[in-house]
């Protein structure tokens, strides 16, 4: 089956057969593919963990008449999108793209596109997954992907750093990146004093407006820039992006573990119990939902089980990512996911980027101290929550936080208690329709309970 997300580029396409992902390289791309392999660029990038490795497969081509080669790339365990990344994940993805371009130029190639969707996190690092993004560099050629890079990377990062981290969500609206005139309008006046932003965003937007639909024929005919100038452009983009920063603080969860009233013993017991459940299930992958900074995700990822560690709070996810990066952790992928409004399918036919649910189901989901937020803060009836979990996982670990717990009391302090069913019995009854209860363990030293469920 041909994958819809790879329809734009005529160089080749992705398809799956018998559950294996392949990438067909079309005949028209032959010289570029050969250059990638012969020049040593492929090896350099793979050695530096910047490009997804592949093997040339000897299988029947998907479209024989136009096929040059069929590749079998290493599969990324979970496809994530820029509107789900923390600030530093996004920034690292941008810097990786530029670093790849610099290395490509040294080997006589260039990136013909700079789509943020071509970057995925693999073994903890951002890597380029589109092997067909390169083409032979011709001396004098400008960077065709410049506009795309600014829309997909520089614009969103500058808005996140200088205006509001939540503006990242605009990437969910604009599949080809945030229009530069919009970024230019939203950035504060002081951004004009940042040379990189002034050139690559403000002047860029103005230039687009000036020449919209009327290429200046004389100038365009002379559109040549030397290689040093090309490298200067990339170098300046690198410096501009390195200069953008965001400090995680002040949001909902950033300090959660510091202020929670969990005693050390109860906390350790919860950890041991979760570890015990994970050993019992022995999953191939885990989604830890509402993971905060990933403390409990690391129980699974520490055992080499690939774990998506998601939270609604960009600060918590940023902390989580920085920790995973500093420790070179390979099996954890922190992501910003709002479960009450998870990523939808976007793009052509709503199918170019999958919704969060479509990227499942997963072997084991964990919802530790999460359900009270869904049920009480978001008024979701417990049966609805059970239905959601039934869609995304086979096994489920739930930590139930009862009403008398101070964390729930906090949620109820400013509102009427309209949740008579929010009890252990209420949860068990709601889950019964979709799941079988396998284990139920009290967390000693707290009023909380851990459950292990299996989908019916």
């Amino acid at each position: 089956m041909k994958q819809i997300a790879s329809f734009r580029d005529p160089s080749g396409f992705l398809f799956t057969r018998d559950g294996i992902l392949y990438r067909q390289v079309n005949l028209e791309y032959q010289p570029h593919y050969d250059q990638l392999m012969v020049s040593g660029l492929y090896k350099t990038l793979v050695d530096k963990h910047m490009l997804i490795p592949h093997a040339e497969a000897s299988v029947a081509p998907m479209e024989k008449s136009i096929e040059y080669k069929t590749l079998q790339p290493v599969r990324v365990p979970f496809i994530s999108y820029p509107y789900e990344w923390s600030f530093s994940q996004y920034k690292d993805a941008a810097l990786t793209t530029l670093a790849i371009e610099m290395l490509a130029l040294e080997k006589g190639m260039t990136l013909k596109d700079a789509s943020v969707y071509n970057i995925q996190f693999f073994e903890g690092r951002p890597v380029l997954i589109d092997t067909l993004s390169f083409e032979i560099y011709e001396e004098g050629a400008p960077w065709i992907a410049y506009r795309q890079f600014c829309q997909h990377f520089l614009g969103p990062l500058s808005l996140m750093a200088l205006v509001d981290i939540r503006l990242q969500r605009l990437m969910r609206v604009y599949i080809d990146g945030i229009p530069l005139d919009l970024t230019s309008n939203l950035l504060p006046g002081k951004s004009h004093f940042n040379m990189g932003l002034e050139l690559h965003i403000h002047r860029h937007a103005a230039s687009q407006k000036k020449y919209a639909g009327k290429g200046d024929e004389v100038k365009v005919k002379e559109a040549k820039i030397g290689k040093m100038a090309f490298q200067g452009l990339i170098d300046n983009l690198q410096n501009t992006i390195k200069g953008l920063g965001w400090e995680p603080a002040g949001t909902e969860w950033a300090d959660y573990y510091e202020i929670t009233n969990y005693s050390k013993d109860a906390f350790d017991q919860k950890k041991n119990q979760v570890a015990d459940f994970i050993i019992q299930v022995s999953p191939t992958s885990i989604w830890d939902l509402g993971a905060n900074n990933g403390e409990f995700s690391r129980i699974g990822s520490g055992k080499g089980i690939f774990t998506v560690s998601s939270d609604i709070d960009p600060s918590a996810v940023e902390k989580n990512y920085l920790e995973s990066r500093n420790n070179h952790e390979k099996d954890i992928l922190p992501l910003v996911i709002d479960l009450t409004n998870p990523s939808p399918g976007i793009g052509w036919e709503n199918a170019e980027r999958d919704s969060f649910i479509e990227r499942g189901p997963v072997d084991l989901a964990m919802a530790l101290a999460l359900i009270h937020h869904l049920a009480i803060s978001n008024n979701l009836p417990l049966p609805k929550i059970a239905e959601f979990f039934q869609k995304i996982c086979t096994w489920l670990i739930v930590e139930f936080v009862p009403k008398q717990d101070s964390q729930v009391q906090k949620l109820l302090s400013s509102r009427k208690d309209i949740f008579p069913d929010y009890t252990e019995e209420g949860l068990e009854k709601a889950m019964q329709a979709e799941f079988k209860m396998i284990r139920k363990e009290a967390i000693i030293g707290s009023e909380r309970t851990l459950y292990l469920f299996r989908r019916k």
Partner: protein
Amino acid sequence: MYHFIELLAPLARAKAYLDPGSGSILLQLLIAAALGAAFAVKVYWKKIKGVFGKKEDAVEPDQPSTAEPEESESKK
């Protein structure tokens, strides 16, 4: 617009499947010389420093996740 792409095609990407955008190409023309000069100075300065035995980072950018862990702490 099509007229413009035809003009651009022979000199740049005969096979460019992305529309690079006329405004984007022309801006590159405008700023390239200055950015190129700045880059040249940077490269040669590092070479000069190298001659005098000062250890410097290579100009070649490394993987950002290992090369710049402290970068996210600036501003705001």
